[in-house]
């Protein structure tokens, strides 16, 4: 087989394994989900997951920690959230702040 064909084999294998991983979570037995401890942990998983996604999205590039235009952008976003601004405005304002700062050559 040519390297091109091998790449196709790898793509199909990776896709199949990715699907099976995702599918497995959707078919765990019901009984596992009804335990009160699972409920409590699930409540905290949401907060932890969102906080971790926020932190890595705001302060990392690849495998490095970085402080750039995103710091100012999420500070503005936090201020708007505190003032109870609508979600879409918070997201758009953060993009605008980061884009403008980068246009000025900062971060």
């Amino acid at each position: 087989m040519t390297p091109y064909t091998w790449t196709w084999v790898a793509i199909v294998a990776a896709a199949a394994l990715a699907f099976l991983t995702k599918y497995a979570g959707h078919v765990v037995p019901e009984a596992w989900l009804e335990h009160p401890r699972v409920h409590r942990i699930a409540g905290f998983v949401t907060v932890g997951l969102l906080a971790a996604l926020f932190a890595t999205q705001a302060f990392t590039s690849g495998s490095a920690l970085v402080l750039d235009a995103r710091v100012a952008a999420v500070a503005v976003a936090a201020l708007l959230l505190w003032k109870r601004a609508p979600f879409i405005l918070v997201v758009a304002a953060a993009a605008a702040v980061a884009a403008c700062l980068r246009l000025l050559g900062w971060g």
Partner: protein
Amino acid sequence: MPVRRPVATLMPATMLVMPRLDATRQQALSVSLATGAYGLSFGALSVAAGLDVWQTMALSLLLFSGGSQFAFIGVIAAGGSGAAAVATSTFLGVRNGFYGIALAPFMRPMRPLTRAAAAQLTIDESTAVALAQPPQDVAARRAAFWWTGIGVFVAWNAITLLGALLGSAIGDPADWGLDAAAAAAFLGLVWPRLASKRAQGVAAASAVLALALTPLLPAGLPILAAALVAIVAGWNAPEREVPE
């Protein structure tokens, strides 16, 4: 399955749910666009790594998990074997399996085909937006999952194609501030859930742990550390301190 009811009795219920669903769809669409835009980088990098447009599209359509896709082409670009690319991509996809468990309480029961579709759409963003809706509002949680999952799927694939065709001629999504937009979206989703001291502690610990592990682990795995913090926090937490 829902019982069939006359339209007249359904109307007030629908009107009650609508404002929430509108906010949900707003979140779903903003997250879809901010995330989908990164398909541009993926498409361009994949072609630069030596894959053709068909292979690039197969990854976005079939594998459909940003972290795993970037890892796959990263290994290929570095001259690694197909087996290494498959292993790295699968390793990074493990968290999607945990997401299915978190989604189960409000997504089940599902018909087999619906379940397969839900599995394919189970990624960071669809899970995050779904779980960010109030737990008692099953309709909003499901709507959030499907709108975000389908939204990201359509945007990600369309923009991957654009990136693969245009190659490196196009700019970086960061020039448009889209990385900051995605960060702000996650901040907006976690914001209303920080009422209890324990929730604030879990958020802070998860964020710090994810950042501390970023230089040490492949992309995507530091996020999983958040689950460890949640297990410690939730093990013996009093019910009133559990965030909704």
